Every structure is written in C-alpha cells, then in structure tokens.
C-alpha cells in the first residue's frame, strides 16, 4: 500500500461502509435471478447469467461473519475483473461513491479479530464520521471455506 493515491469503489453491507480497489472492479450490475449451487460452501450465494456469461456470486456477509440476510429487491452485484479471479462477483446492499483516497490516510488496525476474514482486510481508514474498510478482491476466492479446507489438508 505504498501507492500515493488510488480509486476505491465503496458499498454498504449491513449498514457498514466497505470498499474495493477500483482497478479490480469491472462493473456494478442491477439484481438478476440466481441459481443456488448444491453442496457449495455457505459463502457461495449462487450463479447468475449476466449477458450470456456465468458468474459466481459470493455472499460477503457470510465471509465477513456479518448478520446473514436474504438480499432485498434493491440489492446490487459488484463484478470483478479477471485480475481478481475468474468471472465472479459479490452481492451488496447498496453501492456508494467512487472515492479517491490517499495512501497516507490508511490506518492499520486489527478491527477484525476473526482469523477467517483477516486476510480479506487490506486496510482501514476514516471517511467522514464512518470507518471505511478496504477489502482485497483477489483474496475473496481464496478465502472460501472449501479452499481453506483443501489448503489445510495440503499443509
């Protein structure tokens, strides 16, 4: 995080403010019908067909151990670029603004004590009265419990 400035795409989940590096974000998509994947890890929300392409949609609430809710009708999908992983996205409550943040503003804090989600956190900074938690999009797929079990078995 030595970059002096970066763009962040912010969004809301359970009332909290989170953000992804904009370079990872491909687009924000309105809600679409999804298909539940049998025997998938609990973090997998389902599969959606967006413009003829199948995307894996993750439930970030589960991954961050937040209160799990059925997504409302006005939820949105954030889809990521190939650099973050193969055709996937997450479901969020609402989309925020595109912010340009200074690398110097970042404050490193261990706000999330859960080891399950600590690898996802990139940094924390204040935005007005709120706390903006920066997440790492390219760590999402690796953080799936399925993958972790595999890694655990391998090591």
């Amino acid at each position, binding site marked *: 995080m030595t970059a002096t400035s970066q763009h962040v795409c912010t969004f809301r989940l359970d009332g909290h403010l989170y953000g992804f590096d*904009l370079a990872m*974000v491909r*687009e*924000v*998509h*309105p809600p679409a019908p999804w298909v539940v994947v049998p025997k998938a890890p609990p973090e997998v929300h389902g599969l959606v067909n967006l413009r003829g392409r199948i995307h894996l949609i993750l439930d970030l609430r589960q991954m961050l151990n937040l209160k799990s809710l059925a997504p409302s009708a*006005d939820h*949105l999908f954030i889809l990521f670029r190939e650099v973050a992983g193969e055709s996937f996205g997450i479901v969020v409550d609402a*989309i925020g603004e595109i912010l340009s943040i200074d690398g110097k503003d970042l404050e490193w804090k261990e706000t999330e004590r859960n080891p399950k989600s600590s690898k996802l956190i990139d940094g924390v900074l204040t935005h007005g009265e709120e706390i903006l938690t920066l997440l790492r999009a390219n760590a999402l797929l690796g953080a799936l419990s399925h993958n972790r079990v595999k890694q655990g078995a391998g090591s």
Partner: protein
Amino acid sequence: MKNLRMAQKLGLLVCLLLIITVIVAVVGAMQLSSFNTQVRNLVNVTASGLEKVFQLRARILQSIRWEKSSALTSDDADSLKFVEKAREQIKEANDLRTALAQILEQGKFELERRQLDDFNRHWDAFQATMKKVLELSLENTNTKATRLIEVDLTKHVKDFSGLAKSLEQAAEQEFKAAELAKEPTKMARSLRKFHEASRLRDLMETLRWTLYTHNAASDDQVLNQLDSDVRQIQDRLATTFESLLEVADERDKGEVKRYQSIMNGDVVRIADDTRRFSRRNSTSISQALSLKEAAEGADACDKVITSLIESMRARMEDDKKAMESAYQWAVFQIVFVTVVGIIFGGILGYTIERGISGPMSLALSNLHRMAVGDLSQRLKLDRNDEIGEMTQALDKVSDHLVALLHQVRDGADGLGQASTHLQKLAGDLMAQSEETTVQASTVASGTEELTATIQSMAGASEQLNMNVTTVSTASEEISVNVKGISDAAESANQTVTSLAKSIEAINQSLLMVAREAREGSDMTGKARTIVDSANTTLTALDHSADEITKVTDTIKGFALQTNLLALNATIEATAAGEAGKGFAVVASEIKELAQQSARSAGEIASRIDEVRRGSRQAVASMREVMQTIGVVSTSAGRISDSVASQTETARAIAHDVDGASKSVSSIAVAIREVARGATDTARNTSEAATGTRSLSQGAAEAAKVAQSIAGNIHGVSEASRLGASNASSVHSSSLQLGGLAETLRKAIQQFRLN
C-alpha cells in the same frame, strides 16, 4: 428533443459515449497501425539496409586486410590461407550486396539504388584487381627467388668459396715449394691456380648479388641487362672452371670436376629459376597493385559506401521525423476526438438536464403554489415524455381540485343559505310557539274563567232550580239575577269566539311550521347530493394522484438505473486512466442529475400525498357537515310530527270550542228565555223550572266541555313548549351548520381558483 422518452434520451447519451469511445479506439488503432508501418519500415528496411551497408563495408575492409596479408606473407601455406579468407569475405560481400539491393528495391530507395549501382561498378573493378592481386600473391615468385638465392645459392657459394679457399691454400703452398725449388713454371702455375680460385669466389659472390638485384628489379630494360650480366658471369665461371682444371693437380681435379658439375647443374638451374621467378615478379606487382589500384578501388568503394551510409542515415532521420509527426498527428487526433466527444456529451447532458430540471422546477413551484392553495396556475407543457405526462397529470389534478372546490364552495354557499333560512324559520317557529303558548294560556285562563262562570252559573241555576218554587215572591230578585246570568253568558260567548279565533291562528302558524320543516328536509337532501359529488371528485383526485405516484416511481427507477450506468461509466473511465478523465466528469454529472431527478420525484410524491391528505380532510369535514344536516333533518321531521299532532289537537280544540260556542249560545238563548220567563215569573214558574233544569243541564254540559277544553289547551301548551324546545334545538343546529358553512367557505377562500 423534448418529445423523446427519458429512457431514449439517456440511451442517446449512452450511445454518444459509446460512439466516442469507438471513434477514439478506431482513430487510435489506425494511427497505431500507421505508426507500426513507419516503425517496420524503419526497422525492416532502413535500419537493416544500414546494417547491411555497414557489414558490407566491414567485409570489404576485411577482404582488403587479408589481401594485404596474403601479398605480404612469403609462406605459401599462409598465403593460401589468407587468400581463402579474402575470397570468403568477397563472397560474403557479394551476398550482402545482393541482399542490400533487395532491401533497397523493397524500400524503393531510388537514390540509394543509384549509389549502389555506382558502388557495384567500383566494386566489380576492385574485385577484378583483387583477383589479380590474390592470384599473384599465391604465386609468390619474388619470395621464392629470394629463398633460392639466400638458401640454395648461398650454400653453393659457401661450398664454392670453401673450394676456392682450399685451392688458394694449395696454390700458396705450391707457390712456396716452387719458390724454394726455384721452379718458375710451377710458380706461375700455382699463382694462376690461386688467381683462378679467388676469381671463382668473386664470381660466385657477383652471381649472388646480380641475382639479388635481378629479383629486386622490375623494369624490363634493367632485367635484360642483368640477364646478360648473369649469362656473362656464368660464361666466366665456366671459363674459370676450365682454367682451374688445367692448373689443378691430379689430387684436386676430382674435387674441381665435382664442383664444375654442381656449377653446370644446380647453380645454373638456381640462376635460371631465380631469373624466371624474378621475371614473373608477382610479389612486387601484387604489392604494387595492392598499394595502388586495389587501394584506389577500395577508396572508391569506401567513398561510395560512405555516401550510401550518409543517405541511409538521412533516410533514417527522415523516417524518425515521419514517425514523430505520425505520433504527434495520432496524439492530436485522439485528443481532438476526445475533446469533441466531451463537448458533445456535455452539451447533450446539459440539454437533457435542462429538459428534466426545467419542467421539474416548474412542476415543483406549481406544487408549492398548490400547497399554499393557489390552484390558478397550469403548466401546459407540450411534451411527450414522462415529465410531460407528469405535468399534464398535475394540471389534471389542479383541474379536478378546482372543480371539487367550486362544488364544495357552491355547496357551502347553499348550506349557508339553508342554515340562514332554517335559522329564520326556527326563530319564527319559536316566536309562534311562544305566541301559541301565550294564547293557549290566555285560552286556558279564559276557559278557567268560563268554567268558573259556568260553575257559578250552574250553582246559580241550581239555586234557581231550588228557589223556583219559592220564586214568586222574589221575582224582582230573580229578574236581577237572571240579568247577571245573561251578562255572564254574553261574556262567555265573547271569550269562546276569541278563543276560536286564537285557535285558528294557532292552526295557521302550525301549518306554516310544517311547511318550513319540509323545506328544511329538502335542503338536507340537496346538501347530501353535493357531498356525494364531492366524494366522486375526490375519488378522481385519488386516481390522478395514484398516476402521478406511478410516474414518480418510474422516474425513481430511471434515476436508479442512470445512477448505475453513470457508476459503471465512472469505473470504465477510471480504468482508462488519464484518457478517461473527461468521461469521468461527464459520468459524475449524469450521476448527480439522476440523484436530483430521484429527489425531485420524491418531493413530488410527498407533495401529492399532502394534497391527497388535505382533500381527504376536506371530505371528512364534508361528512361531518352531512351528519349535522342529518341531525337537522331528524329535528325537522320531529318538528313536523309534533306540529302535525298540534294541528290535530288544535283542530280538536276548534271543534270543541265550536261545540262550546254552540252550548254557550244555547245557554244564552236559554238564559234569554229565562229572562223572558222571569219577566213573566208569576205567570209561568213551572216553565221556569223546566227552563232552569235545562239550564242546569246545559251548564253542566258546558262545564264538562270547558273542562275538556282546558285539558286540550294544556296539551296544546305542552305541544307548543315541545315545539319551542325543538325549534330551539333546530336553531342551535342551524347555527352550528351556519358556522360549519362559514368554516368551509373560509377554507375554500384559501384556494385561488382562477
């Protein structure tokens, strides 16, 4: 523009952005491809041509180097090696020349091709020279000749001088022996031997130096001279050997003969070879060639190649300049297209924004006016999009509201009039009830008086009846009494007549009350119709409000989608980096616009809800009014009923009074008859008795009638009191109604309808 749907407008905007992106991409790709062509031209043709020229030059220099080496070396093997290398370089140079020609052909470099032709000419000449030099250097004759002289001949010269030395020593000894022996012949012979031997040595040395000179010389005349010199020396050597044989001892002869044969064989051969080689003179020629013609050819080639390099370098400079200009042109085009696109996008966005926010603010100000009650304004926007529909629906709402308020105002006016009327009626009714009560009490008092009179009359008649038998003596007294009775009866008759009149008046006023009550009932019916029509209008208003809510919901949906679109445009623009900054600005403008639209739609929806709530309240007030009217209506019905019963009672009273009047009249007649009888007392006392009895009976009857009248009058009085209380309740209700009508009117006055 203003007749397009908002979605179409936004679509247009998005299309424009896409088209700009595509144009930028196409222009960039085209410029890149032309740039690529330039680069490939530079690298493939000019640079590789230049490289080939340099290689060619290197090859030529290499070949010259090997050629020089081969010309300078004296060793045959080295010479062959160097020649091979030189030939190899020349071959490679030829290959390079062909390749270069192809490249120049490919690049269509006319100037360079002419220079290459020039070079080819020089090169061919140089190559020919080189070939000659190389062939000559391979022969290496001068070196061979030198070697012959220095090795073979020198050895022979040494041997020969050894021979000469031994001969000289022998001759010296012989000379000394002959001197001692004093033999002049021997002395002369040994002297001659000495002399010949030293001459042999000299000649051999001379031969060697002559051959050296021969080898070094290259001029034909000198060579011929030297050739004859060599021949002379050989002849003289032969002569010397002949002489030596003559003077030699038997001991030396063999040796001399052997040398002679060497002389004739080997030495002559060496001299011939040396001369032949010297004649060839290849090394000198090759060196001369190498120093002069080959060097000149090489210089010419080099000069041409240098000029070729210069022109290629100039061409490379040109290519570099072309590339730079292509790069600048590409940058200019991309920047120009981007700027034009941003300007167009900005204008279109501004137009759309104006198209939405202008009518929006108009509609909003109209809603604000509506909120404070000014319904006179209409937007009348000639637009076919959602905004147009919304403003038209708003106009329709205003129309409906105005119509509703007109109706309500008319109803309130009618209601006010009706309540005023009702109030007046109730006042009248009260006054009349009071009058009725007064009159009834008058009647009652009259009736009581009458009853009393009749009772006294009955008492008197009873007394009369009792005294009739003893009347004869008191006929005078009777006469007076009868007169009093007659007066009383007359007064009773008068009272009854006035009573009848009063009852008639009561009847009249009661009929009037009944009529007024009916009118009041009609009024309430009218008011209900008005309230019903107000209700219908309110339903229409609700419907319009629902439509507006739907439109605002649609606008909110569009705003949300636009917001997403703008967000994604921002993401793309940010991903595009510096080039996308302009797009990012446009996208954030669109986002702002969408949020503004959503806010405006929300405000409109809340305003419409307020209007709807206000009109619901108005209808509730109307319902209250209607309930009050219902109460009034019931009161009026009750009045009507009580008036009807009063009328009935009054009619019965009238009937009874009529009967009373008749009875009283008959009493008066009887009394008059009594009077007449009294004046004739003496004459007809039995008649009087009969008369008094009948009088007594009539009086009792009259008393009963009067009693019933009194009862009826009491009923009238009660009914009129009830009527009065009803009238007062009607009065208060109508006052309340009037107040409500006034409130309603004031409420409506708050609205400006025109």
